[in-house]
């Protein structure tokens, strides 16, 4: 099972690399990772920047998870 899981992780990362490369081509209809992040971060409920809080909070937690806990 370990090999299957590792393969899926690698495939997921490679897909992200591929999509990022496709997004850089002229006239591409695939947005880049930065555009996706920006779109999510622009989401608001009323005046509360929910998307921004969620993305920054997730990234903060990620650093804590890998480098502190």
């Amino acid at each position: 099972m370990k090999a299957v899981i590792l393969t899926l992780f690698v495939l997921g990362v490679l897909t992200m690399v591929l999509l990022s490369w496709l997004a850089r081509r002229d006239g591409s209809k695939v947005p880049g990772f930065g555009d996706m992040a920006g779109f999510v971060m622009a989401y608001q409920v009323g005046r509360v920047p929910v998307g921004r809080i969620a993305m920054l909070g997730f990234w903060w937690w990620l650093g804590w998870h890998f480098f502190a806990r």
Partner: protein
Amino acid sequence: MPELPEASAHEVRAFDRPIVMVPLLSLIAAFGGLFGSFTVSANLLVLAVGGTMVWLGLSGRAGRRTAVLRLGPGALWWLVPVLVLGLTELYSFLHGSRDDYPTVSFIFDPILDRYLPRAAGYFGWLAGFWALVRR
């Protein structure tokens, strides 16, 4: 795709330049790499750096890049890696995150025990944080 107006030049502070930010983030990463997991120092540094980044990101003091307001159907392709990575992580987590069912942290924790990979990872985390703050 319709876009929000870009941050004007006067909104971008002097510290918001690669020549300033890259050495600064490198210095923090080199320092952060010294602290092992489960130490008070590591927790305090992540708390302080993360708190500063979140404050900068929410206040908009660092200036922001152009934001895309609407995405085309091509954006759906991003669901493929998000679902593959997310569901695989969830599946492994629900099976106890062990050698047969490794999660991302199970794979990376032994690597991040050494100084250089830890400092490099710390830099990647900080650079990603800064990129999000500017979005």
